[in-house]
C-alpha cells in the first residue's frame, strides 16, 4: 500500500530516540533563535539539524523537502530585496534592477526560519512512526480519540485516493470527460467529489461500529502491546533543551528590559 507516512526505519540511533525528545528538540531549536534574534543562532540551529540528520542517515531524504522550499525562499528574496519598505542601502544591481541590503537581510532571516523549521520537523517525521507518536501521547494522558485520529489519517488518506481513482473511472464510463479544458474539469467536479464524500461517510459509519465492537469506547485502563523504554539520554537531552530554551527566554526578557 502506498503510505503517506515518510517514516523509514533505517536502524540508526535517531529512530530509537523517544518521540517526545524529538518534539522537545523542535520546540527548542525554533524558540531559541527566536529569543536570541541573531543570525548566528539560526546558523547554529541549522548546522545542528544537518548534523543530526547526517548522523541519522536521513539527510538525503530531507533534501526533497528543502529543495521544495527553495522556490518559496527565492521568491521571498526577490520581493524583500527589491520592494521592502525599509530598503535604503543598495547592495548590488542586475542591469537596472537594484537589490537592497535591508530587504535581503530580512529575507535571509525568514529563509533561515523556514529551513530550520523544515529540517527540525523532518528529523521527527522521517525517523518516527506516526503510530508511535500517537501511542506515546495516549500513554501520557492524551485522549485515545486524538491518538486514533493521528495514526489513522496516515492510512485512510491513501485509501481515499484509491477510491477517487475508481470514481473517476466509473464516471468516465458513463461518458463524462474528466480531462482537457478547465471548463470540462469544472463540470466534472460535482460528479467526482459527491461519491467521495458520501462513500467516506458510509465507510466512517461502518468503521465507527467496527471500533466500538472492539471496545474502543470501553471504560477502564488500557494496556499497550509495546512499552517504549526511555533511554537515559532522552531524559538528559530533554532537560538540557528545556534549560537552554529557558535561558534564551531570560536573555530575551533582559535585553527587552534594558
Amino acid at each position: 500500500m502506498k503510505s503517506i507516512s515518510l517514516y523509514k526505519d533505517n536502524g540508526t540511533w535517531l529512530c530509537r530516540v523517544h518521540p517526545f525528545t524529538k518534539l522537545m528538540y523542535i520546540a527548542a531549536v525554533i524558540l531559541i533563535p527566536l529569543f536570541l534574534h541573531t543570525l548566528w543562532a539560526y546558523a547554529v540551529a541549522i548546522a545542528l539539524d544537518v548534523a543530526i540528520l547526517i548522523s541519522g542517515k536521513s539527510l538525503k531524504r530531507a533534501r526533497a523537502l528543502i529543495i521544495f522550499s527553495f522556490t518559496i525562499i527565492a521568491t521571498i528574496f526577490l520581493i524583500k530585496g527589491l520592494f521592502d519598505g525599509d530598503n535604503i542601502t543598495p547592495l548590488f544591481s542586475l542591469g537596472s534592477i537594484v537589490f537592497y541590503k535591508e530587504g535581503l537581510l530580512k529575507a535571509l532571516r525568514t529563509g533561515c526560519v523556514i529551513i530550520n523549521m523544515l529540517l527540525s520537523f523532518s528529523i521527527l517525521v522521517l525517523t518516527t512512526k506516526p503510530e508511535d507518536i500517537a501511542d506515546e501521547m495516549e500513554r501520557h494522558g492524551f485522549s485515545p480519540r486524538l491518538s486514533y485520529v493521528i495514526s489513522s489519517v496516515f492510512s485512510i488518506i491513501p485509501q481515499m485516493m484509491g477510491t477517487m481513482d475508481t470514481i473517476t473511472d466509473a464516471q468516465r464510463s458513463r461518458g463524462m470527460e474528466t480531462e482537457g479544458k478547465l471548463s470540462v474539469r469544472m463540470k466534472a467536479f460535482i460528479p467526482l467529489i459527491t461519491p467521495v464524500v458520501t462513500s467516506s461517510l458510509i465507510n466512517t459509519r461502518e468503521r465507527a461500529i467496527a471500533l466500538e465492537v472492539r471496545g474502543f469506547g470501553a471504560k477502564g485502563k488500557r494496556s499497550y502491546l509495546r512499552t517504549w523504554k526511555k533511554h537515559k539520554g532522552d531524559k538528559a537531552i530533554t532537560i538540557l533543551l528545556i534549560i537552554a530554551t529557558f535561558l534564551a527566554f531570560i536573555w530575551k526578557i533582559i535585553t527587552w528590559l534594558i
Partner: protein
Amino acid sequence: MAYIEIDNLKYRYPKTKKLALDGISIQIEKGSFLGVIGRNGAGKSTLSSAIIGLVPQFYKGAYGGSVIVDGLDASRTPVSELSRKVGLVFQNPFNQLSGAKDTVYDEVCFGMQNFGIPSDEMRRRADAMLEKLGIAQFRDRNPFDLSGGQMQRVAIASILVLQPDVLILDEPTSQLDPAGSEEVFKVVEQLTNDGITVIMIEQKIDKIAKYSDKILLLDDGKMVTYGTPSEVFAESEAHGVIPPAPLRLSRALNIADENNSYPATEEAAVRIMNGKVSFKDVREKERTTSSEEVFRIENLSFHYTEGINVLHSVSLSFDKRPTAIIGQNGAGKTTLAKLMKGLLKPSEGSIFFKGEDTKAKTAAALSSSIGYVFQNPDDQIFKPRVLDEVMFGPVNIGMSKEDAERKAIEALGLVHLENAKNRNPYDLDLHERKMVALASVIAMDTDAIILDEPTIAQDDSGKNLIARIIGELAEKGKLVVSILHDMDLVATAFTRVIAMANGSVIDDGKPEDVFRDESTLMKAGLELPHVASLGRKLGSESVLLTDKDFLESAFIRE
C-alpha cells in the same frame, strides 16, 4: 435460562414508518450454531445489531421488548462493554480494519489494548489466533495490502482474541471470491467445534444448511420459522429463500430420509439418494449461436508495474452470446474488462470493437457503445434523485433530454425500480443502489455491457432478476460480459464461460464443457455449481447445470 433471550423485540429505524423487527422472540443456547436467513430487508442485520446493542444505542429509533445477553440488557449495556461477550464481524472486510495499525499483528491486538489486557497475555492470544486462522505468515504485513479473504480472517481474529462467548457473522463472505469465502468458512467450521455460540447471517444457503443446528427464517421483520434446516427450508421458498439444491432435487424426486424429511446438505442427499437414482444421457443442449464479432482481442498483455504482467498475451473473440468470466481474485478478470472498456490501455497487443482499434479512444468516447457497471454503486451515485442519476449517462453521450428520460424509465422498469424514480438513491438499500447503477448503464443503450460482480448484496430474487435482465439484453442483440463468482448464476444465465487464472485464459466454451474439466476448476480455484456437484457425486456422466437438466436426466431405479 438460555444464554441469549429475545422477547417480543420490536424496532423501527429513525424517520421510517415500518417496523424493521416485529415481535421476534427466540432463545439461543450457549455453544449452538444459529443460521439466520431471509430476503433483503427481512431484518437479519438489524437483529444482529440488536444482540450487540448497536440497535438502539448507535442507530437510535423506537425500541420495544427485550434482548438479554447473559443477564445483561443489550439495549442499555454500552456496546463497548457488551462486546466483551458478543463479537461482530460484518460484510466489508476493509471497513473493519481499525485504520490505526500498520501491521496485522498490531491490528489483531487493537481490541485487547482497549480492554486493558496485559501485554504478555495479548501476545499469547494473538500468536495462537494468527496460527489458528492461518494468517501467521502475514503478521508483519500491512493489513490493507491483504486480499479480501485474508482481511476478513484478520477481522475475525481481531474479534476472537477478545474471547467473546458469542460470535455474530453478518454475511462475512458476500464480498469475497469463492476461494476467499472458502478460507472464511473453514475458520467458521473450526469454531463450531470450539463451543463458541455462532450466529451466522448468510445468503449462501448451502453453507447455512451445512453448519447450522437451528435456522431462523425472517421475513418483513417477522419471525417465520425457527427450527432445524429441513423444517425451515420446507417453507422458506414462499419467503424469498430458495432451498439448497439437494433439498429441491430430492423433494422433486420424492426421496426422503427415515424421518420423512428431505436432506438439506449435499452429504446427506448423497447418503440417501445414492443407489436410488440413475441418470440417462441428456442430449446436447441447444444453444443460440452467434457469428457477429463484437470484440476481437489480439495478443493482449498488460502490466501496472513494468516487468510484472497481469495479463499474458490474451487472444479472444466475443460474439453476442452472454459470456461469463470466472476465476479467482487476481486472475486478471477486472483488468481485462477495464481494458475492453478503454479505462486502461494495452501494454501490448490490440483490442478491436466492431473492427475498430480502441487504443486511440478515451473511455468517455467509448461510452456510447460500451457500458460498464462497477462493483460498488456508491462509487458513482451523486444525484439526489434516482431518475436524474440514471439519466446522467444517456445525456452525457448526447441523447436528448426526452430520449434520456424515456430510456431511463425503461431501464428502471427492467430493474423493478420504476416506483423509486423520484426517491433519493441514498435512501435505498445497497442492493437497490446496485440496481440503480445497473439501470444507469442500461439506459445508455450501448451495444455491449460489461458487469463486474453484479450479484454482490443480492438475495435470491435479486439474482433471478439479474439473470432475467441478462437474458433480455441478449435478446435485444446486446453483448453482455460479466465477471462472476456465483457459479449457480453462471450455470443458468450464460451460454459461454471464459475461465481465467494468473492472467491467462485457461478454458473457454459452453458452461457444461468448462465445468466438466476438473483441472480447469482446480486451476481457476472454482467450485462446481451446486446442482452439477450433486449430479456428479451421484454418478451422472453429463454436467447437469440446472434443476431442469437434473430432473430430465435423473430417474428412480426400480
